[in-house]
């Protein structure tokens, strides 16, 4: 997939995944890498950016019966609002791109 296409939509993918449940960092990178080929560092930077912006919270949890610790990420209330905004923008963009591809022009709505 083209790098520029991926770059623009990765943040939406991360927020969308977090809207369904909590994920820990490595698990999220593995999930995204199932279909997209993305550097783990990029995903971690997105998570840190989202956390800094307040869209995502994190906490450290110990795995049961082990000494291993994991950092889990979950969507905040602001994150849910951000997801709605991004989803609306995505739907709009999807429609525009589809018009360009299928109709060779854009209608003025």
């Amino acid at each position, binding site marked *: 997939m083209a790098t520029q296409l991926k770059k623009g939509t990765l943040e939406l993918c991360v927020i969308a995944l977090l809207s369904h449940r909590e994920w820990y*960092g*490595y698990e999220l990178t593995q999930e995204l890498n199932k279909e997209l080929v993305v550097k783990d560092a990029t995903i971690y930077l997105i998570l840190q950016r989202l956390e800094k912006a307040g869209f995502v919270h994190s906490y450290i949890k110990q795995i049961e019966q082990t000494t291993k610790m*994991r950092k889990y990420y979950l969507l905040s209330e602001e994150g849910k609002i951000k997801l709605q905004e991004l989803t609306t923008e995505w739907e709009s963009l999807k429609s525009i791109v589809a018009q360009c591809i299928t109709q060779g022009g854009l209608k003025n709505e």
Partner: protein
Amino acid sequence: MSKYDYIYRLRMNLSQYHGNIDEIIKNYETIIDEMLDEGLSMEQIIQRLGSPAVLADEIIDEFKLSYRKKTETPKWTSIILLICAIVFAFPIITIIITLLGSIFGTIIGAIGGVFSSFIIWGIPEASLLTKLTVSITSLASSISALIIWYFLMYWIIKLCLKFVGWLKHTITNLLGGL
């Protein structure tokens, strides 16, 4: 590279920038621990995250970290250095004057050598061998002396200019600070 080496190098790369570096480092320690717990080797982790330098660049770019200015030398250090420089300067100046004096002697000697290499040919009593020997050795020693002195003086002048430049900069900063 071990985890500690990686984190140390990442910290070194980021330490030149303003920002919550401790928090960033702690985050990446957690990330690396997580990946190690999942069974990845450090080589695999470096492949996924990038080298410490590459990762540092990405972090700096992502969070728009600003570069720290180099710390200025404290005023009292500058004053002490200035006093030392002035004291140190006296013997240096004496050496320079001596060297400058000797260069003139060398130039005069070299000119004399060049002349003697021609004058010898005007002495009828001297044999051809003597004339050739005197000419060649006089010319060769004159030219080599001039070349050596040229380079010596070049470096001495360059050092002096650097020293004067540093002195000027320090005095300007001190006066500016006062």
